[in-house]
């Protein structure tokens, strides 16, 4: 993990500390609606920000905490489901019809609690079991939502789940939705970045690197891990609510095993070392998913072989660049630093 800046908050200098690339990116993103069409804003970027947030919750647990959790999509789905159940949807026999300012906090709270409970179940064993346990719980949640009709409306799930028209804005309008998801993606990104250098985040990294030492220093290792799950639950929950609004529906398919593994693929593909990796991975994934059919047809394979493409791509990344795209980028930068002209000059001296 990169660690060149000191922990303290220096009031004036922080603006100077933000690298130029971030400013360029921020301006580009803010002005995007000027030159991008509705499809790009709503589908490509909206989905990127949403999947990025959910993948960010995984990155937080895996990159800073050393815990690879496959339950993040389930937590997101739980938030979406609870929103549909406590708020409004077309399934009036289940939905409670609470106003948004009650339904949304409730959905987030339940998602957070769910994540905490899963965390408590998963962290008291060796790290390598975490993948197994969270995968099993994700599967359980999927099967339960599919079979339970009283609460989760089984196979069909919920539809017509829409955001409230706050300030007279239709938040599913492409431009509005774009800014909404951009806002929450930025907030979660900055929150994770900030937290990583706060005592909680540092302690989490300590637990990742040497839990035995942390215990010997007086930290309650289990409590820190569970708290990390709780925070990640909040991130995934926000993503889940936005996801539900984007497609106006939620069903068991949203929280299936395939979806859970997609989040892992996104996080690993982007790179687990830095929060931006989650969004990089999400962007690449969304592009692939949108344009893969055409690409596959050009290459001569059937358009349905998307999973094969993703699987091979994932294998390639894990095999050759386990730090994901960010890792490739870092290697590229290091390689570029070796300026051939400079080396030439040195030899001549």
């Amino acid at each position: 993990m990169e660690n060149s800046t000191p922990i303290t908050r220096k009031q004036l200098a922080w603006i100077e500390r933000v690298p130029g690339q971030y400013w360029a990116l921020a301006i580009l993103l803010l002005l995007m609606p000027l030159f991008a069409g509705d499809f790009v804003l709503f589908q490509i970027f909206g989905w990127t920000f949403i999947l990025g947030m959910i993948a960010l919750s995984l990155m937080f647990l895996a990159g800073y905490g050393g815990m690879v959790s496959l339950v993040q999509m389930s937590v997101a789905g739980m938030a979406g489901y609870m929103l549909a159940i406590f708020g409004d949807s077309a399934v009036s026999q289940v939905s409670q019809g609470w106003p948004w300012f009650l339904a949304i906090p409730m959905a987030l709270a339940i998602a957070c609690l769910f994540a905490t409970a899963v965390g408590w179940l998963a962290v008291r064993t060796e790290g390598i079991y975490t993948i197994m346990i969270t995968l099993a719980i994700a599967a359980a949640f999927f099967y339960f939502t599919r079979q339970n009709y009283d609460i989760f409306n089984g196979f069909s799930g919920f539809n017509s789940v829409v955001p409230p028209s706050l300030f007279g804005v239709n938040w599913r309008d492409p431009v509005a939705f774009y800014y909404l998801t951009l806002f929450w993606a930025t907030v979660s990104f900055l929150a994770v970045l900030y937290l990583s250098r706060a005592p909680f985040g540092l302690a989490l990294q300590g637990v990742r690197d040497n839990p035995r030492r942390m215990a010997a220093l007086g930290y309650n290792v289990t409590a820190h891990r569970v708290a990390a799950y709780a925070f990640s639950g909040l991130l995934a929950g926000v993503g889940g609510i936005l996801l539900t609004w984007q497609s106006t529906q939620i069903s068991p398919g949203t929280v299936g095993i395939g979806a859970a593994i997609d989040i892992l693929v996104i996080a690993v593909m982007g790179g687990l070392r830095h929060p931006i990796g989650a969004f990089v991975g999400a962007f690449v994934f969304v592009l692939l998913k949108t344009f893969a059919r055409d690409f596959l047809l050009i290459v001569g394979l059937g358009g349905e072989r998307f999973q094969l493409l993703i699987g091979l791509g994932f294998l390639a990344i894990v095999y050759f660049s386990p730090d994901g795209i960010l890792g490739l980028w870092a290697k590229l930068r290091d390689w570029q630093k070796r300026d051939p002209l400079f080396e030439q000059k040195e030899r001549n001296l």
Partner: protein
Amino acid sequence: MRVFARNHPIWTAIIAFVALVFIWLIFALWPPFLVELIGRKKVFLSALLNGITLGGLYFLVASGFTLIFGLMRNVNLAHGSLYLLGGYVGFFAAEWTGYWLLAFPVAFVVVGCLGVLMQLYVFRKLEGQDLRQTLVTIGISIVLADLMLWVFGGDFYNIAAPSWLSGPMETFFATGTKRSTGELIYLKYPLVRTVIFVAAVVLGVAMWLVLNRTRIGMLVRAGVDDREMLSATGARIQIVFLGVFAFGAGLAGIAGVVGGTFQSVAPGEDIRFLLASLVVVIVGGMGSIPGAALGALIIGVAEQFGSVYFPTYAVVLTFLIMVVVLAFRPQGLMGEG
């Protein structure tokens, strides 16, 4: 077991009591009030036997999984894909040769070879990086699943049991009395399921014997305890790893043939049996063959009883058991902790 009884007298008493109740339920003729309460004894016995034989199948899949994990600390999430491949391969082997029994060695060899390839060209390169290996198995499972879908399509393949194994057999469990003569009626149960279950038990016992009574088994167990120590003794640990992975994979392949005979081979079964393996080893304890057996039995029986008596919540029962074990004994019922 005696040590367990001494250290946990209350649990031992509870388990003994439950066992006695079960034995009575199985062998005694049920009084009318019980039939009113739970249903017919035939249903109960069928569910129990189905659960036990399903447990045999789960044991076959899970033991390969736990063996690979126990020795190489590799959570092989492609294990379900290996199972499915074994099912397809076994189906075609049985179809083309006409011999059901041939399906087993063919599936074992084909899937075992795939296991050898995986170990040689993938895992050996990533030695020591447990998480990365697991991620690779996820990638492999995605690729394999799609390849199999491409080649075999989405149909359900059912491996037909041979004629000398099909049909019911008489068991010694009495379900009632003939009203006319007062003779006992015995439960009839599919022969093939019984035979496969017995085979699974034999295989399990054989594995346990090999692990605990042979030199090879000793090497494997030593490797489970301390990998570095084993390689330091000069034992050719790579060969041991290779052998164990190939065997574990082959076992999954055989399980695929069994599953194809019991139920069917189709896309989605890979995930289903991977999850079953996960739940079984979480409940039974990682790296333990007896643990896999115990876990498989519990999960198999729970699943069957669930689907018979609480159909809408069958899945919940199994996962509830898993959650309870995780909450109170995270290392599994027979795991070291």
